[in-house]
């Protein structure tokens, strides 16, 4: 039994679940952000595994665009965190409650 596409899909599902646990349990906004990156990477692994298995280039182009969006998200998200820290002296996600009624 050689390493099949299912192995990669199961690994990707495990990594995605780990990222979900992190997003739901951590309170430090930067760690939450890193967990989101972990989830994005799990999806990238699925795309590339299926792309390689099906002999089609489109999945890898999708990964290319996901990386672009992740880079843009990193720049804007971290700038938001710096601004928030400057105003509130904290980056605990519990303190992100400005819009709460």
């Amino acid at each position, binding site marked *: 039994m050689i*390493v099949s596409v299912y192995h990669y899909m199961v690994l990707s599902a495990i990594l995605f679940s780990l990222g979900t646990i992190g997003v739901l349990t951590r309170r430090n906004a930067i760690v939450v952000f*890193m967990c989101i990156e972990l989830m994005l*990477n799990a999806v990238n692994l699925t795309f590339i595994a299926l792309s390689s298995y099906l002999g089609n280039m489109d999945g890898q182009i999708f990964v290319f665009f996901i990386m672009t969006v992740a880079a843009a998200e*990193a720049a804007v998200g971290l700038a938001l965190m710096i601004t928030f820290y400057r105003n509130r002296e904290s980056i605990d996600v519990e303190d992100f409650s400005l819009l709460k009624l």
Partner: protein
Amino acid sequence: MEILQQLFFYVVALVAVISGLLVVTCRNPVNSAISLVMTFFCLAIFYVTLHAPFMAAIQIMVYAGAIMVLIVFVIMLLNLGSAVAVRSRHAVTGAVVASGLMLFQVLILLKKGSVSVVKGPIDAAQVEAVGHTELIGQSLFTDFLLPFEIASILLLVAIVGAVVLAKREV
């Protein structure tokens, strides 16, 4: 040879899962960041074994290079200690149950379902012969030209947005 291939997969997968677990559980954000870099490297190894060397290079340069440097830089800039920042026990249990349920559903789906077998033209031999970068480029600049241009505008917006958000009021 196949045994060796499988052993290699399992070792790298184990390292990836353990470092993913460390990202979630480490108290100190810097340790989380280092573990995340480890996960990125493991994924890059998988991309190489999946005949996508260009993607592996991009993974290391963009994720492990650019994005992680940005994250570590912000952690250092904000000088965050390793304060206990975990939610209550109930919230943690709920999150673990929810994502465990999600993993279970995906595993059932993978076990019962089957991957489509509409095979495309590209295989490992062609990637060897033509070169992965060239194949990506051909696809990117013909079929996906408009999304490529939109991605460039997105990056421009991100640059301007980051500068506007993070600069001090003059």
